[in-house]
């Protein structure tokens, strides 16, 4: 009951989906939609679990006045506001033509002014900004971590620099001015070299990686279906 039923459920679901891929009949397609619905619902309930965990952690920090508890409070407030506005914003949308709120479903940021404002000016701004922090880290990584310690690292470096210069119109332009034009296209342009690098050696390696990953995924799947690995047992005591 505790050990075998989950395994049976997993195997049944897995084998059914595997079979469904090859059986195009409508009944099986319908089954897939039903199963997808189940997983969506499970995910929804699990999300509650996760949010509860986050709120609990933050709340404990606030209650205990742990260090930096104001930030935990910020998290809680941010969540509460966004959630409330989001839920209401989903059910009452602001109709720009009539200018009044109407009952609806769905959660379009631009239909609810408040939610939209939070979404665009807080959510997406932070999203984009933290994303763009990567540029700085990239630079420092290039300076502090990229070392031609051996031949392999050297090749990584060389390829990276060729691509970077080839992708930079300015350098590509000067290369063309000084090398390509004078020799009447006996020397390939930097962009073409980059293209070649990407199209042949890069594709070769990528393919090998894809073969490997695909097969490894298949093997792991088989192991799960026959119960050699039972990750679903985790997280539930005994």
């Amino acid at each position, binding site marked *: 009951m505790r050990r075998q039923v989950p395994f049976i459920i997993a195997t049944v679901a897995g084998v059914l989906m595997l079979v469904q891929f090859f059986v195009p009949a409508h009944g099986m397609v319908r089954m897939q*939609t039903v199963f*997808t619905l189940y997983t*969506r619902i499970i995910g929804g309930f699990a999300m509650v679990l996760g949010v509860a965990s986050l709120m609990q952690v933050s709340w404990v920090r606030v209650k205990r006045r742990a260090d930096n508890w104001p930030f935990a409070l910020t998290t809680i407030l941010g969540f509460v506001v966004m959630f409330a506005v989001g839920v209401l914003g989903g059910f009452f949308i602001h109709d720009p033509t009539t200018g009044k709120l109407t009952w*609806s479903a769905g*959660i*379009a*940021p*631009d239909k609810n002014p408040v939610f939209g404002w939070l979404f*665009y000016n807080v959510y*997406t701004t932070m*999203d*984009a900004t933290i*994303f763009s922090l990567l*540029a*700085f880290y*990239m*630079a*420092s990584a*290039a*300076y*502090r971590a*990229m*070392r*031609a*310690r051996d031949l392999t690292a050297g090749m990584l*470096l060389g390829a*990276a*620099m060729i691509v*970077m*210069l080839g*992708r*930079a*119109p*300015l*350098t*590509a*332009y000067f290369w*063309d001015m000084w090398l390509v034009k004078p020799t009447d296209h006996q020397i390939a*342009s*930097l*962009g*073409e070299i*980059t*293209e070649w690098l*990407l*199209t042949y050696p*890069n*594709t070769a390696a*990528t*393919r090998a990686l*894809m073969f490997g990953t695909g097969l490894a995924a298949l093997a792991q799947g088989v192991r799960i279906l026959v119960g050699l690995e039972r990750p679903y047992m985790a997280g539930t005591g005994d």
Partner: protein
Amino acid sequence: MQQPRRGFWYSALRIDRRYIFVLVFVSLTVPFLFPGMRVAVEVQNPARQVYDFVDGLKEGDGVLVAFEYSPSTAPELTPMATCIARQCFQKGVRVYALSSAPEGPPIAAEVFRRVAGDYGRTEGEDYVNLGYKPGGVQAIVLGLAQNVSSVFPTDYVGTAVADIPAMRYFKKLSDLKLCVALSASTVAETWMGLASARFGVPVATGVTGVMVANFYAYLDTGQLVGLLGGMKGAAEYERLIAENVDPEHGYWFATRGMASQSASHVLIVLFVLFGNLAMVMSGRGQRRRRR
């Protein structure tokens, strides 16, 4: 790291990274202070293939543009969308936009709002913004292949698709001549795998630079008809549009960024060279165990 802590090169290796950050910021900002600055972009084949394919479409054909990205990657992907919209509108090709990402539709609306006017194209007649649908891109594509209205009963602003003239020519996925998946994730692969391989609709992708290298493998197998890679790809497309389609209109975001792009690339290359030089001169790299 028990090494003698002395010597210029040694200290250079341990320079505070904040100086690097400042340099990066400056190299990116300065070019923008000279709005007149332009850099010519070399057009490569993957971008040209996209251009040629759209160029080969006839008036009245349908093109689907999937805005599968959030504003965080808009600098790379939105210029591509703008260019595709321009080329399609100029040829009279209908454009349908949809997204499996909740942040996508507003971007699509913005792009259409900016471009459509230049060619006198109207919403509903020449382009439709179908909006966002949860449940994953696989479900969306499979649904579209059967029946559009089952997935998108209404468009983004809530008009029933039955009342939209342009939707008469887009009842199911196979009515389209091209799908363009603009994505910052593997969603583009899913579009390719389903739309192209299963339903035979050609797929071109515009992806962030991160994924370009891997997508070349799909280009070679013919899974893709064309590929726009990152801001450079967008700039290439912008050049093709600006020179062949519509010189006067348009504010070429990507092309403008190219100056900063070049500067930063050169800076990074210099960083790498200098870092390695410092390692050599200081006589010892950090002995980090590695493969």
